Structures are given as structure tokens and as C-alpha cells.
């Protein structure tokens, strides 16, 4: 007779925490993040490569972020040669990060230079993706991400040694927690922004041209119901992410939603680097088991090959550290040299320095006219006609109505606006007024709503809704009343009350 098996001792809370942070693992996820983040950050870095002297040096027009925080002089602003040298080092460190050569030093250098050079140009360089990048680069520098799929690992094998590939998980865990905290912080921002939940904020962002081209956003801005739905889904996902994106189906759902979300920010908001950065950082969720599953699915070998060590002495030892230091020095000097040889502001052009261009009198009059008032048509963002309201928005724009239906008219106003006396008329094709309503839309409201009952006092045919502000025509919409009369039994006043 078998003795009853002893009941398993439940792991203590502390054991679970320790397992979470210190379980040994192959640095698969962090290695993939390392490889991709360097490449992603090269995009904005190379985009600004010809503007180094202008944006990041005291010989240009830098815009240090510490000035905005009332801390002028918080960090020194480099002169042009120094800025060029540091920028060259940033590019080098991103490349060596990606290929994994002297990985820890490369990551540390990339983290410091990304932050420092970004802070020198608050206008056009530093963004929150710069900040996330800085965090991730610094955390990667404390990981074993350079011990796998890297030049360092290759060189170690040539030396006949191997690098540690079963280090603790904590750097990867901190990267994951960082991403969850960023989402939670983004939720705080949304909670502080009531217009986010009515879709107004997103709608206007979809229409802006300060980000890259976003034609999908411009198209979707016409569907407020969808925007509101997306806003609530986004908030729920952001709140849940930190707490459930760890294992099993919740992990898959959270990461899949995240991929879709960030892809949509490319299409709808015109973001570019931020989504790619997050695609890269999401690789931190990949574990050895995931990779094995993928390799089996793709019918490759079931697991990662163990490092193959060559025999010592087979090849000459490569002095990686001194070589890296030499390249760093050479690249710095190369940056300085390029800066000295360049003439970014045209001071030494053969035809002489640039000459300020005069402005025509008409243009000067336009620029200096100091407009005080907004034209009445610009006080209106949109005049919509439909019948369904969802979260303060009309969501079923349409033009055709039947007898007995109530027409919902939404006047969306352009913020900021003053308290407005808004009238809405229903006119027939001959210009005769059949309905008129008015209300005062106070300055804190972005919309005014009106209702007209299409009852049997109206003949079938074409009508128009005319919106007037302070007695001036501001916008107009057409609608058709179809079908026979006599359907409506609701009184006009009652309909307006509804």
C-alpha cells in the first residue's frame, strides 16, 4: 500500500518574488531587444545627423530642456566639435549595441548619449520615446543580453571560452515592468483629460499635421463612435497590462492588443519611431520556451544550440577591449573632423554668406495684423444631422428621414470659444422656415444638441438645417423627408422635451 503523498508546501510570497526576479534564464528576450532597439534608434539619430551643430552645440541654437524646468545651466552645452564627436559616438554605440560588441559599454554609452543629446534639443529631438529608450538601454546594460547572438559571444567562442547564458531574469523583468508602468502613466494622463473619453482629443490629434502623414486618421476622424470605443478599449488595456501580461492567454491577449494599438498609432496619428520602439521592446516577453515553439513550428531544431567552444590557441586572440576603445576614439575624432570640414550655415560659401530675404509689404501686413476675432464659420467644427447620440456624440450621420422620426442636430464648436447664442433653423427648399430652436452654448461645452420632430406639418421633400451664431449663418446641412405624412402622433413640444 502506497503511503499518501505529502501535500506540496505552497511557495511563500517571497519565494515567488525571488523566482520572478532571479530565476536563471537564457537571455533570449533581452538579446532580441538589444539587437532591434539599436536599429530603431538609428532612424531618428541619422535623421538629424546633418543638424548636430545647430541643435546640440553652443555654436548653434540648442533648446535645452532644463531651461523649461527653470534650471538653466543644469548641464553644460558642448561646443560644435565636442557635439559632433559625441553624436558620432552615439551612432557608433547604437551600431555596436545592435551587433553586440563590448555590449555592456556600448549600451551604457548609448543610454547616456541618447539622454544627454536629447535633452539639448527639447524642440525637435527629445520625446517620450527617447525617455523609454534611455530606460531600456540602461536596463539592458545590466543584463546578459550581449552574451547571446553577439560579436562578444562569437569572440568568446574563438577564445575557447563561453559567456554566461543563464543569468537572472531581473533586468528583463524591470523592462517589462517599465512598459506596464508607462501604460499606467498614460492612463493617468487620459484620466486627466476628459476630452479623451468624448473622442475630441483623439479626433483633433488625428487631424494634426505635426506628426507624419496619417490619412487613415483623417478618415477615421469622421467616425466619433468608433473613436470613443477605441478610447475606452485603450484605457482598459493600459490599466490591465501591468497586472496580467505575464503568462498564458492574458499575455498573448495583452501583447497582441499592444501590437495592434501601436500599429494603429502609425496609421491614425502618424507616429513612426514610437511604435517601432515598442515592437522592439515587446521582444522582452519572448522566453526560451517561446523560441523553441517557434523553431518547432518552423521545423527547425527544437532548441538553441549550445555554444560551441573552439580550442584555445586555435586562433589568435582578438583584443576586443582595446580595439573597441580605439574605434571609439577614432570615431570621436572622425566626428570632430567632419564638423570642422563642414559648413552647415553657409558661412564659407563661394557666393558668400546667406542673405536675409525681404518680405513683401502684403505679407508683412498679413503677418502683423494681429487678428482678434474668429470668422463665424471657423467657430464651427462641424454641423451633423442624425438620430443617435453616444457619449455626447452624434454617431449616425444621415440625410434621409421618415415621418415621425426625430432629427438630432449636433453643432460641434471649435475650442476655445466664447459663450454663444446658437440658433438652428429647419428650412424647406423655398427658404421658408418651419422650425427654429436656440440655446446658449457656454464656453466649456464643445457641442450643442437640438431636436426637430419630422411630423405631418411638414411636406415631403428637401430641407436644410441652418446653424446661426449670434445671428450669422455659420453652417448648413441638407436632409430629405420621405414617405407619407400622418405617422407622427407625438406633439412638437413633447418631441423637443425628448
Amino acid at each position: 500500500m502506497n503511503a499518501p503523498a505529502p501535500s506540496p508546501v505552497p511557495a511563500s510570497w517571497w519565494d515567488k518574488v525571488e523566482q520572478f526576479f532571479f530565476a536563471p534564464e537564457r537571455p533570449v528576450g533581452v538579446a532580441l531587444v538589444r539587437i532591434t532597439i539599436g536599429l530603431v534608434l538609428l532612424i531618428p539619430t541619422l535623421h538629424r545627423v546633418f543638424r548636430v551643430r545647430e541643435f546640440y552645440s553652443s555654436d548653434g541654437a540648442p533648446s535645452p530642456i532644463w531651461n523649461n524646468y527653470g534650471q538653466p545651466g543644469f548641464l553644460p552645452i558642448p561646443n560644435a566639435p565636442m557635439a559632433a564627436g559625441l553624436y558620432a559616438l552615439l551612432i557608433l554605440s547604437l551600431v555596436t549595441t545592435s551587433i553586440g560588441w563590448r555590449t555592456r559599454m556600448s549600451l551604457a554609452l548609448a543610454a547616456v548619449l541618447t539622454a544627454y543629446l536629447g535633452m539639448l534639443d527639447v524642440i525637435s529631438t527629445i520625446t517620450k520615446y527617447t525617455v523609454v529608450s534611455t530606460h531600456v538601454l540602461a536596463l539592458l546594460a545590466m543584463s546578459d543580453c550581449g552574451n547571446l547572438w553577439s560579436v562578444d559571444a562569437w569572440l568568446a567562442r574563438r577564445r575557447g571560452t563561453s559567456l554566461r547564458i543563464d543569468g537572472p531574469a531581473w533586468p528583463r523583468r524591470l523592462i517589462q515592468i517599465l512598459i506596464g508602468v508607462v501604460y499606467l502613466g498614460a492612463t493617468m494622463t487620459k484620466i486627466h483629460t476628459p476630452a479623451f473619453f468624448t473622442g475630441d482629443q483623439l479626433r483633433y490629434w488625428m487631424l494634426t499635421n505635426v506628426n507624419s502623414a496619417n490619412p487613415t486618421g483623417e478618415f477615421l476622424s469622421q467616425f466619433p463612435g468608433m473613436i470613443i470605443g477605441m478610447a475606452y478599449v485603450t484605457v482598459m488595456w493600459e490599466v490591465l497590462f501591468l497586472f496580467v501580461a505575464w503568462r498564458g492567454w492574458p499575455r498573448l491577449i495583452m501583447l497582441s492588443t499592444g501590437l495592434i494599438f501601436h500599429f494603429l498609432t502609425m496609421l491614425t496619428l502618424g507616429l513612426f519611431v514610437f511604435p517601432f520602439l515598442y515592437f522592439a521592446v515587446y521582444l522582452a516577453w519572448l522566453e526560451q520556451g517561446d523560441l523553441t515553439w517557434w523553431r518547432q513550428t518552423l521545423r527547425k531544431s527544437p532548441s538553441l544550440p549550445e555554444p560551441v567552444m573552439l580550442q584555445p590557441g586555435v586562433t589568435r586572440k582578438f583584443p576586443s577591449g582595446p580595439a573597441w576603445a580605439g574605434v571609439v576614439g577614432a570615431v570621436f575624432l572622425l566626428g570632430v573632423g567632419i564638423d570642422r570640414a563642414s559648413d552647415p550655415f553657409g558661412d564659407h560659401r563661394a557666393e558668400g554668406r546667406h542673405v536675409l530675404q525681404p518680405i513683401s509689404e502684403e505679407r508683412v501686413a498679413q503677418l502683423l495684423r494681429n487678428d482678434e476675432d474668429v470668422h463665424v464659420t471657423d467657430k464651427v467644427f462641424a454641423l451633423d444631422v442624425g438620430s443617435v447620440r453616444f457619449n455626447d456624440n452624434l454617431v449616425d450621420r444621415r440625410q434621409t428621414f421618415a415621418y415621425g422620426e426625430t432629427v438630432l442636430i449636433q453643432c460641434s464648436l471649435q475650442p476655445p470659444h466664447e459663450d454663444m447664442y446658437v440658433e438652428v433653423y429647419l428650412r424647406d427648399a423655398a427658404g421658408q422656415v418651419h422650425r427654429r430652436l436656440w440655446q446658449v452654448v457656454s464656453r466649456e461645452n464643445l457641442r450643442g444638441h437640438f431636436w426637430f420632430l419630422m411630423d405631418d406639418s411638414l411636406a415631403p421633400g428637401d430641407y436644410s438645417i441652418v446653424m446661426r451664431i449670434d445671428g450669422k449663418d455659420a453652417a448648413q446641412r441638407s436632409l430629405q423627408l420621405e414617405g407619407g405624412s400622418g405617422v407622427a402622433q407625438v406633439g412638437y413640444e413633447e418631441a423637443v422635451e425628448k
Partner: protein
Amino acid sequence: MRRIAACTVIVTYLAVLGFGLISHAVGFKSTDHVGMYFLIWDMYCGWSGYELRHHLVAEGASGQYYELTPVPWGEFTPFGSAPRTSYDNSASFTDAIARHVLEHTEHEEITQIILVEEAWSKKYNLPDTLWSRYYEEPKEPRSYYRTRAVLNSHGEFRERFLDWGGWLAYRSITDNPRLQQKMAGRPFLTTEQFGPSSVRPVSHTVIEHE
């Protein structure tokens, strides 16, 4: 030893992230130090109904005006179609940009520099095809221009003014006889330390990128 160091890093990092989160949530010391920019996750905290662009012009001693932007060596567009100078929402670096352009160009004696803000409703950013599907009115984009700042010939600020959104919000509140009566004849003191203002009930023009 490595374990102790790792635990120290973990605890410190989580504490710092937590502080940033709470600071942002309750508005506690969230702008006290430049380092807070690295701990506050306030992407897209603001929005505006108007698209804004900045124009920097200089007036010469002859009375002729010259354009300082786009900069003569070619304007840089960091994120989309807008030039770099238009991302300086608070006009904090107008002086540095103006001085830099003047230092590297030939020009007559400059007497003053003016920063002009151009604003237009974002509805005009809709492409024509979408506009015609959505609006019955013809698309007739209209821009508004207001002076944001006036600088002397050395690039030092002489006057600064509200941005377009701030101006409209200010007007909407002060267009009130009772308020105007109370305000009349009172001495006016100003400060560079702008705080959250109630004159913007429905719109902000702070723009964060990505």
C-alpha cells in the same frame, strides 16, 4: 555581493518608477526638476483645435522686414511637415533661434525681431475628398495671425503675448462688463512663472510628440 547589488537596483528602480507614477497621478512635484521628464508618462497630455505655425521676422533700420524662418540653410522638419521652430510651443527659444540666424546671415542693421503665430482650424487639414463628403460648404482655409513675442535687436525679449488659444480663451472670459469694470485701472503685474490657468476651460496648446 552581486545579489545584494541586484536587489538594490531592483528596489531603487521600482521606487523611482512608483514615485513618477504617483507624482503624475496627483500632480505632486511633477515639474520640480528636469529629471521628472524621465519619470512622467504624459504622452498626448494636451490638444488644440487649431494647427499652429511660427514665423520669425526681423525689421531692419530701413523699415524693411526680413524672414528669419525658414532658416536660410534649409528648414528641418523633425516629425511631420511642420518646421522645427513650430514645435517651440511656449516660444521659449525664439531668442536663441533668432540670434543664431542673424549671426550667420548678411543683413542691414536689425531693430527688432517679431515672432508671429499662424493658426488655422484643424478641420482644414482634411483632404479635399473627405471635406467634400463631410461638409456642404466649399473648403476655404482661413489663417489667423497674432504676434507672440517682440525681441530687441540683440534677441532679448521685450514683450510676450498669449498664444492663439490662450487669447481666444482670455477673450471669452473677459468679455464681461462686470469683470471689465473690476479690472479697470488696476495695476498690472506679470511673471514668467506661468501656472495652470483657468482661462483655458476647454483647450490647451501643449503639444507632446510621440
